[in-house]
């Protein structure tokens, strides 16, 4: 009996060890953070590409904690992926830390991988000091979904006429809502606040490159959002406003472009998409991010492989209509200009130049810290849990302290002087 268990375990061990082998040098290891449904769409794209029998086939690896994993493989120096799909806000610090390889070879191999063929905001997110470090896959970001039935019920469908719902319009419904119904939820409210910051003419970067959070414009943003909440229009603090939208009790849900697929699962929900609300119909922004193909520094990646990567990216450029199914705004112009793309709800955001210009990606080096502060404090301050002054001060301090801590260059300079 014991012997049998031993043999059984032994053979298992052998099985697992064998399964560990089989890494092919000619395979492009491609890491993405695309968990959930998104991963399945990317899998489909990759497998379509591999069906074309390329010299360098692609192996798609989905990781649920990709950036931590990137740090660990970079530190240990092996297992570094050949191609990585990163978010736009990571580019500045990755470049600063010298982690990325430029796309020059890739762009030479496939001349169609060029600025003209992509949405400008997505392309430009990969440029640091005039060097192109990334090729974009998509833009994804804030979107505002509306419940058509509720708009009609309250007789406010005309709000959508100019494609921008304003604060003032929403305030018209103060005191006129049925019990348990709301005009808007607070999903992704941090992103909404960052879009409003643009609408109010503010910014997060000072004249000398320092982070600016405690600004008059940020105060205006907070006050305006607070007004909506105090008027009883916003779903209460701590409620899952996203689910409340799906249950049909909220007119507007300010979540992400990718949510359209999940909303579509709820048959009872009759919804459409528009821009994030704004103070005026003339100026409006949708705070966005982008998924960007990039190559981490690695000694193992050969020039031939880079050419293989170029072929794959060119394939993606031509065929990423599959990616539109994930709800994202595809970055390739060939795709968004094709008639097939119009069936997707997110084609709203690229239908004209003005719409395209509303997609705003923050590229400031310390943006991630600012976004973290905004995500931490905005829900509390909008719902009146914390005073505006305190929130602004604490957010500024939060960012300043982190920036100072990460500023290793300054420290090195100081040491050199000593």
């Amino acid at each position: 009996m014991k012997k049998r268990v031993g043999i059984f375990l032994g053979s298992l061990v052998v099985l697992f060890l064998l399964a560990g082998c089989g890494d092919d040098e000619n395979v492009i290891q491609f890491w993405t953070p695309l968990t959930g449904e998104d991963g399945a769409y990317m899998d489909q794209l990759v497998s379509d590409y591999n069906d074309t029998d390329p010299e360098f086939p692609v192996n798609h690896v989905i990781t649920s904690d990709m950036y931590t994993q990137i740090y660990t493989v970079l530190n240990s120096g092996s297992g570094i992926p050949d191609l990585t799909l990163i978010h736009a806000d990571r580019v500045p610090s990755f470049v600063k830390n010298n982690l990325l390889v430029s796309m020059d070879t890739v762009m030479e191999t496939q001349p169609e991988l060029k600025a003209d063929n992509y949405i400008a905001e997505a392309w430009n997110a990969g440029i640091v000091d005039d060097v192109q470090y990334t090729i974009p896959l998509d833009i994804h970001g804030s979107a505002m979904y509306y419940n058509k039935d509720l708009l009609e019920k309250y007789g406010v469908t005309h709000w959508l006429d100019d494609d921008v719902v304003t604060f003032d319009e929403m305030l018209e419904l103060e005191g006129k809502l049925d019990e348990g119904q709301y005009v808007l939820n607070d999903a992704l409210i941090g992103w909404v606040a960052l879009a409003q910051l643009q609408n109010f003419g503010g910014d997060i970067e000072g004249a000398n490159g320092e982070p600016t959070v405690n600004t008059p414009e940020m105060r205006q943003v907070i006050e305006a959002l607070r007004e909506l909440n105090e008027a009883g229009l916003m779903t209460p603090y701590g409620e899952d406003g996203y689910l409340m939208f799906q249950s049909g009790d909220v007119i507007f849900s300010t979540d992400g472009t990718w949510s359209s697929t999940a909303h579509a699962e709820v048959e009872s929900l009759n919804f459409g998409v528009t821009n994030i609300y704004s103070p005026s119909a003339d100026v409006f922004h949708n705070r966005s991010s982008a998924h960007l193909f990039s190559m981490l520094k690695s000694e193992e990646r050969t020039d031939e492989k880079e050419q293989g990567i170029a072929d794959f990216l060119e394939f993606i450029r031509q065929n990423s209509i599959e990616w539109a199914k994930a709800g994202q705004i595809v970055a390739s112009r060939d795709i968004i200009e094709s008639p097939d793309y119009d069936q997707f709800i997110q084609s709203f955001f690229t239908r004209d130049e003005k719409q395209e210009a509303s997609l705003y990606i923050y590229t400031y080096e310390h943006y991630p810290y600012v976004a973290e502060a905004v995500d931490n404090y905005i829900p509390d301050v909008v719902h009146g849990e914390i005073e505006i002054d305190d929130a602004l001060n604490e957010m500024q301090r939060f960012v300043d302290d982190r920036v100072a801590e990460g500023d290793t260059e300054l420290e090195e300079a100081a040491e050199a002087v000593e």
Partner: protein
Amino acid sequence: MNRTKYTQWFFIGPHMLLFLVFILVPSIYGVYASFTRWNLVSSPQWVGLDNYKTILFNQDSSFYHEFFNGLKNTLIFVGISVPLMVIIPLLIAVAIEHKDVKFKNFFQSIVYIPGLISISAAALIWSLIFNTQLGIVSNLFGSEFAWSATQPYAWIIIFVITVWGGTGGNMIIYRASISNVSKDLYESAEIDGAGPIQKFFHITLPSIRFPLIYTVVMTTAGAFNVFGQPLMMTDGGPRESTTVLMMYIRNLAFSHGESIAGIASAMAVLLGMIILVISACQYYVMNRNAA
């Protein structure tokens, strides 16, 4: 006799090797990192005690605020969850081991099985139950507000999910220990006229002292490292009142911005020292009792 002199290595050697490789070396690195400025990418820069000075004494720093707020919340969690995680399983174990109670394994299974479910699914179940619109709790209590965003209810839902998922393990140990207490002790106490409560305090508790102390020590160490439950139930809110230290540490080290691993390591070392002191006290008690 050289042979006997070194036989201890046969027994402690293999584990010692494992310890060196998988705990000591990484820990030394972690402590070293706490004296540096490090973003996990470029090489760490030695800054001496700067990180500790900032965390412990610089009242203007957000790291000071985060450390002490996180520590306060961690201590609240430990202070309340550990007694709950000992008393509730103990009561259940005593009830199950009541000599006239049947279906013992049935009751035990019901209490134990929730502990097997993954934390994310458990959190989702409970957030739906506590959801004001869809859930049952607000109907039951007639509350109009979201529990996860109002204190002290935010803490309450964290404790509810913690106790729901974590009672089973300790309960099994207690139940087994109670069932192994000699029946003679109870019978002679009954002859002396002792009631159920006296029997519990004078016979049951002293007899299961060792398992009791063991579970207290392990539960405490686990509670200090908590972060899953608050992260998923309240996301640390409202106003960071349920953000525990491990959440701050993980955020500093592995958030969206450049990593601030030096400060994170220093906080982890400080937390480790606190756990060490508290565990040392508990072990001291345990050792004295077991000797």
